């Protein structure tokens, strides 16, 4: 992807707000995944709770940063969130694959912190102490926590449009993005269905909307908004994570294009009467045939199945990819493979063959295992299923997911080397490159520094603040060079 060099001097913010950017009207996107992890500890000979363990995990972070919030040399953010959730937010990426690599790196960063804490914990709490870090969305008491996706969207797409045109896709995509959950009342294909209320909201912790519209785009607010998708599950499967981002990206491309060209939206036939009710219906049905109530102003039809709705989105995505064949690689690499997997997923579910998806769809992998375990042990203790359900998501001490991979029952997209690289190297084609280089240098020289998504700041010996407003640009600016020099 050719990078357009834009020389920035003087007052960046003013110039950027009024100058045209290369991505104002195309389909380029910035992707990010923020994952809240759950923590537990077992096998201790003295009492110990999640809060204490999370603080132990973050001890090295606190020593270094004097805070439970820091940024890493790969450009990502690592912090301890509300309710003692370690959280990892990936550095900005231009592609779903780039975001996947960063997300996989996040799993390893968490695992490393957990295992180091475990070593220290064993000195005081016995040799069997084990720290578990869960990349999932529900604990054993029904408390929920999230995996939030971030997509940079052109500002011209209104919130109303997002609600009508994106929500039906988000409600039905669990057919292949759901992580699955065994409950006493049966198997659900998505973890988050029971915990979401309004479709779109500006509130954060009070109610849980599916899509959040807080507007801190970490970019030029006149041009972009940051779509914060809250309804997704945390995925272990790399293919599922990649598909979740790639398919949502294609849908956003169609929505953006339609907004520019006008006419009847290809998704007008899918608007839902009650998204919360719909996602609960989708979640309880592995056949995709649950009938979902459509909004009153949808012509003709009153209901549609989840499969039908997904097909409408797939068809629109196929048309988009065909129409943009020439430039598709720049919009979404491997688009053809995304479409193929998407189509196969819907066909398999329609035919009742969801087991075919067990090598990349998290809920299918789990359900296949649970069913097999129940066949092997007809009197299986429900606690065992609950245990397997959780262990699947333990990135520190869980062996279940790794066993799937070892038995070639779970696909991967990234080599271990690619993941290791992503733990230390930021994406080269976004603003993360500048942040990552700054953090790496600051850590090596021991300078006093801070940063956030849109600034890097040197504190001593001289304070220099550098604003980085364009997430698409990895190009050094004068202010950035000055800050780098001052780091020593």
């Amino acid at each position: 992807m050719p990078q357009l060099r834009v020389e920035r001097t003087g007052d960046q913010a003013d110039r950027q707000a009024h100058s045209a950017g290369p991505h104002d009207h195309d389909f380029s996107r910035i992707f990010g995944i923020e994952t809240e992890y759950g923590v537990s500890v077992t096998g201790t000979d003295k009492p110990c709770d999640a809060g204490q363990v999370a603080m132990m995990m973050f001890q090295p972070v606190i020593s270094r940063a004097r805070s439970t919030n820091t940024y890493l040399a790969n450009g990502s953010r690592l912090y301890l969130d509300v309710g003692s959730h370690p959280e990892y937010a990936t550095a900005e990426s231009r592609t779903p694959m780039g975001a996947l690599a960063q997300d996989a790196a996040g799993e390893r960063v968490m695992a490393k912190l957990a295992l180091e804490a475990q070593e220290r914990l064993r000195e005081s709490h016995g040799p069997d102490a084990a720290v578990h870090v869960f990349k999932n969305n529900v604990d054993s008491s029904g408390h929920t926590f999230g995996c939030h996706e971030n997509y940079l969207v052109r500002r011209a797409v209104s919130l109303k449009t997002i609600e009508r045109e994106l929500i039906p896709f988000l409600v039905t995509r669990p057919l292949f993005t759901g992580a699955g959950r065994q409950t006493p009342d049966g198997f659900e294909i998505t973890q988050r269905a029971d915990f979401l209320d309004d479709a779109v909201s500006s509130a954060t912790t009070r109610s849980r909307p599916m899509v959040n519209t807080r507007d801190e785009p970490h970019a030029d607010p006149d041009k972009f908004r940051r779509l914060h998708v809250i309804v997704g599950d945390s995925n272990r499967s790399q293919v599922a994570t990649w598909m979740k981002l790639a398919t949502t990206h294609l849908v956003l491309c169609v929505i953006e294009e339609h907004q520019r060209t006008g006419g009847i939206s290809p998704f007008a036939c899918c608007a839902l009467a009650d998204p919360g009710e719909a996602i609960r219906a989708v979640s309880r049905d592995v056949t995709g045939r649950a009938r979902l109530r459509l909004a009153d102003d949808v012509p003709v039809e009153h209901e549609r199945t989840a499969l039908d709705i997904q097909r409408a989105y797939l068809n629109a995505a196929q048309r988009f990819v065909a129409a943009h064949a020439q430039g598709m690689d720049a919009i979404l690499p491997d688009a053809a493979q995304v479409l193929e997997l998407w189509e196969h997923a819907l066909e398999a579910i329609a035919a009742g063959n969801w087991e075919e998806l067990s090598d990349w769809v998290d809920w299918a992998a789990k359900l296949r295992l649970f069913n097999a375990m129940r066949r092997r042990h007809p009197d299986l203790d429900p606690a065992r299923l609950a245990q397997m359900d959780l262990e699947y998501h333990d990135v520190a001490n869980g062996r279940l997911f790794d066993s799937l991979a070892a038995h070639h029952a779970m696909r991967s997209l990234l080599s271990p080397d690619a993941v290791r690289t992503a733990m230390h190297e930021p994406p080269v084609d976004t603003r993360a490159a500048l942040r990552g280089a700054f953090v790496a240098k600051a850590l090596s020289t021991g300078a006093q520094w801070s940063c956030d998504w849109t600034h890097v700041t040197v504190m001593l010996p001289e304070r220099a603040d550098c604003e980085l407003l364009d997430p698409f640009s990895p190009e050094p600016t004068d202010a950035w060079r000055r800050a780098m020099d001052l780091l020593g």
Partner: protein
Amino acid sequence: MPQQHEQRSAEQQAAEQGNENARVQSNVDAQVDDLDALLDDIESTLETNAEEYVNRFVQKGGE
């Protein structure tokens, strides 16, 4: 793709279907064998006290 199917004779199609069935069957058998091995692996590594493992995981809600 549908057009290509129609051009082949019914006989050919039946033969192909038979071969395909055999292939699918052998895949399924291989999967079943491996599923057993996979379950063995999983069972050997699960912590013995399932209830304790599950009940120890309690957190306040996040965002």
